[in-house]
């Protein structure tokens, strides 16, 4: 099914620590998305990229979250100072374009902030 690769699968951090997760999009997919899925199964869009450029991001991403998709390297999402409320499943996805095409997800990184 999906060829989006996310690492690590599980991440445990203390409050205030940095948490970094990585994503390799499916080959040939220039658009990358990050979503957060909380314990109530609700999805929240965080940020998306076309190649190395940010297309759009939500406010919370701008403040404590940083993300990048450098050329020839995995994309990454980093939480600068983890909070308990950041505990969630972080899902990376990729597609050929930002709309009108199918989106494929990786298996996710499950972050637990203790």
């Amino acid at each position, binding site marked *: 099914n*999906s060829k989006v690769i996310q690492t690590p699968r599980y991440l445990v951090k203390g409050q205030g620590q940095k948490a970094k997760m990585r994503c390799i999009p499916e080959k040939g997919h220039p658009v990358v998305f990050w979503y957060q*899925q909380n314990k109530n199964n609700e999805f929240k869009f965080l940020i998306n990229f076309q190649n190395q450029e940010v297309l*759009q991001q939500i406010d919370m991403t701008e403040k404590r979250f940083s993300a990048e998709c450098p050329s020839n390297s995995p994309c990454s999402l980093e939480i600068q100072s983890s909070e308990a409320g950041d505990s969630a499943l972080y*899902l990376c996805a990729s597609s050929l374009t930002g709309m009108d095409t199918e989106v494929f997800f990786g298996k996710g990184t499950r972050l637990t902030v203790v």
Partner: protein
Amino acid sequence: GDQVEQSPSALSLHEGTGSALRCNFTTTMRAVQWFQQNSRGSLINLFYLASGTKENGRLKSTFNSKESYSTLHIRDAQLEDSGTYFCAADYGNEKITFGAGTKLTIKP
């Protein structure tokens, strides 16, 4: 903002039976995707529809763009169909918007 209403929130079926899940959309959208999320959290792509109906084995999905809804029909349910099913809408705003999910339990 753009929302997706998904129903039911939970569904229990006996093996061999079937049912339908539904998503209503708040405005015109370009396409819908359906996913199954397993117990480990992996999202499996089931269908991508810009219009009409698609069928794959025991699953069938329809997207009615005029009336802004989509359905996912499951027939002859098997134990491995258990999981949470999500629809997601492409509203043309460069991301997909998820419904709240349907937790499906298949009983022997």
